[in-house]
């Protein structure tokens, strides 16, 4: 992964000193609450239900073993022994004390990490494909471009106080795994007809209370110009985005208000002045940044016979390999997903010991590196086929080998009411109750690919709009209820799900999922995925089934009470 040079290190060190002084002035009463708030937010520090929450940047999901060990140490020393992987590939700690944060940042800086711009109304951590650099369907490795964007956006003086937060995601593969269509800027690396490299630029996507799918503002921006083009977008937004109402301040609202053609015209007009200016990228700069990733040089290996023999004789191993192992672009290697969705655990949580253990696995099997995914799992990008069996056994020993990647129990969930002050309802117990209901692995495999995404309120941190099944916590006269959508999808076909009807009490949720699944199984053709069946037969039949079975349950309950 990217290794800092002296300049990268200096900027992070200077940030630690700056924030230590800001915290000191705040605690001494020299900075008011209002003045300190944006400063701490731009350092990932929220004040939450129980304590401050610290969000640490994991640039486009890349982590090395040394960093994992530092995170383990932080979890143990300053938190209650665990950390949480977010849907933006970052890591959150829920219990640090404000007074300790400067010290934590200092520890992070020693391993080339920080919390810069992980929150606040600025350009946030750039996210990308967790299989970048190793995916078989990759066109161009997005990581160097993400790093270039990271550097450009870090402390960008003009864009530190935008109308609202600003999220950029980059995809470099045929299949989008970075959900670029629901980001403020989504960049798709493409070649034009002449074979030149550039970016298709989508703007104005976002979830939250007004979910919108980003639209194409430029079909092709030459790679040399990408920072100039982004600057043009950000300037138009900074000057004209709404600042009177936080709910209408995202760029998506500006794009909708102006219409895509007018927004694009304003960006083009600004871009005309910036084009070929000093921020224009050079081949040498791209190569320099790419070189600092220091990727292992992999040459093709013969397919491993031992691996294939194990698959044939060990059913449990084969099940894991089927769900958690992915093709690698180099023969003889594979990518492995460690599941952070064992039953009964908050999706995306890792204990301090698990952070250490993952570091150990990375060192032993994966060139010392891992990736966090927006589905809240961990990827080991490059593992020798010959090592897969041993890796599986080790991962099993630390509880990270649940063979459920992409299945019903691989649930994306925000922290919800257990931690988040904005929540309408809890998320984690719902995820756990659903996992509990579907504890038969063979059945899970039969159901096949299914994404359930849960958010505790309409801010949509759990991406519920783009879940095949989306669950949204709502407040009904002070009680926690859940609204269900189906038919949402991430990826190239990004679609927002449709609400099936009135919301449900928490206790009903496993039954609701059961009804949805039963309707799917009854209507499924061949090996169709849930989402394909929904698309083919429509929402109505699912809706009818869910509410009919609900009515029957309520009636049965009444009878039982008579």
């Amino acid at each position, binding site marked *: 992964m990217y*290794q800092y*040079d002296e*300049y990268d290190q*200096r*900027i992070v060190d*200077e*940030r630690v000193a*700056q924030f230590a*002084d*800001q915290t000191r002035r705040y605690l001494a009463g*020299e*900075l008011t609450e209002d*003045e300190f708030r*944006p*400063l701490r937010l731009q350092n990932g520090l929220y004040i939450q239900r129980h304590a401050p929450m610290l969000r640490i940047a994991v640039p486009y999901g890349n982590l090395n073993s040394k960093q994992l060990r530092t995170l383990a140490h932080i979890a143990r020393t300053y938190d209650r022994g665990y950390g949480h992987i977010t849907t933006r590939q970052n890591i959150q700690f829920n219990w640090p004390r404000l007074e300790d944060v400067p010290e934590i940042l200092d520890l992070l800086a020693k391993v080339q990490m920080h919390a810069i711009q992980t929150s606040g*109304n600025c350009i946030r951590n750039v996210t990308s494909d967790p299989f970048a650099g190793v995916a078989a369907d990759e066109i161009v490795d997005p990581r160097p471009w993400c790093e270039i964007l990271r*550097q*450009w*956006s*870090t*402390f*960008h*003086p*003009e*864009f*530190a*106080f*935008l109308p609202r937060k600003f999220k950029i995601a980059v995809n470099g593969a045929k299949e989008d795994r970075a959900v670029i269509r629901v980001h403020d800027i989504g960049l798709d690396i493409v070649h034009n007809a002449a074979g030149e490299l550039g970016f298709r630029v989508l703007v104005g996507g976002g979830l939250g209370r007004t979910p919108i799918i980003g639209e194409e503002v430029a079909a092709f921006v030459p790679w040399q110009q990408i*920072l100039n083009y982004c600057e043009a977008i950000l*300037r138009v937004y*900074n*000057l004209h985005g709404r*600042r009177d109402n936080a709910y209408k301040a995202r760029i998506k609202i500006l794009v909708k208000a102006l219409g895509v053609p007018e927004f694009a015209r304003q960006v083009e007009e600004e871009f005309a*002045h910036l084009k070929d*200016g*000093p*921020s224009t990228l*050079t081949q040498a*700069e791209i*190569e*320099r940044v790419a*070189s*600092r990733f*220091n990727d292992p*040089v992999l040459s093709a290996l013969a397919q491993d016979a031992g691996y294939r023999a194990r698959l044939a004789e060990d059913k449990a191993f084969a099940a894991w390999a089927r769900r958690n192992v992915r093709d690698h672009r180099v023969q003889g290697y594979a990518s492995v997903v460690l599941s952070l969705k064992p039953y009964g655990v908050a999706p995306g949580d890792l204990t301090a010991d698990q952070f250490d253990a993952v570091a150990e696995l990375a060192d032993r099997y994966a060139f010392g590196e891992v990736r966090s995914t927006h589905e809240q799992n961990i990827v080991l990008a490059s593992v020798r086929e010959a090592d897969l069996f041993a890796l599986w056994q080790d991962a099993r020993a630390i509880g990270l080998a649940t063979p459920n990647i992409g299945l019903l129990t691989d649930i994306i969930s925000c922290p919800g009411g257990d931690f988040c002050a904005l929540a309408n309802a809890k998320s984690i117990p719902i995820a756990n109750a659903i996992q509990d209901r579907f504890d038969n692995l063979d059945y899970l495999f039969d159901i096949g690919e299914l994404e359930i995404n849960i958010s505790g309120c309409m801010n949509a941190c759990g991406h519920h709009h783009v879940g095949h099944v989306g669950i949204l916590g709502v407040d009904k006269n002070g009680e926690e209820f859940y609204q269900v959508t189906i038919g949402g999808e991430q990826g190239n076909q990004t679609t927002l799900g449709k609400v099936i009807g009135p919301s449900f009490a928490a206790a009903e949720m496993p039954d609701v999922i059961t009804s949805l699944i039963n309707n799917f199984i009854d209507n499924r053709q061949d090996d169709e995925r849930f989402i394909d069946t929904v698309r083919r037969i429509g929402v109505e039949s699912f809706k009818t089934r869910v509410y009919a079975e609900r009515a029957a349950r309520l009636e049965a309950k009444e009878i039982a009470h008579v």
Partner: protein
Amino acid sequence: MSDIIKNGRVHVDEWTVLRLAEGDEAATIVLPAGRVIVPLAVWQARREELLPKAEAGVLGVWLAGNEDPTELAGDLSALPLIAVDFPKFADGRGYSIATLLRTRLGYGGELRAIGNVLRDQFFFLLRCGFSVLQPQEDKYTPAQLEAALASLIDFTEPYQGAVDRPEPLFRRQPRRPLHKEAA
């Protein structure tokens, strides 16, 4: 008189910022004596009358966050001072206005940040081309303002180009690739 920051030091200010109160009319408001920074509306209403004062170096104009700096495009060489108002420090439009004044319009005179100007934004303000920073009167004690000078240089080598250093870091400094062992 409030204190300002200029060229890395604290100075006593010689200018008065004129703000229109409820009921004040741009066309008729009486200007205070001495050097004065007037709202754009006053400048536009009384340009003929005020132009000689600007040319004499005793009158400047301030822009609000929603005002378009190109409105001043024809007056830049006459104006010794333009200020940009930050109604709230977290309202970042002023950074783009300053950038446009310096880069697009080529304004070379004094560019001043007024309003809710706080030390934790000094670094960003300087980078966007402000040459004078004017915190609200009484916001900082003299000692605090002296201490705040440290914030002007929070970061020594920023990554991206901006008004103060138009070239990004990769053009300003030799940044090294990582050399791999020959395979």
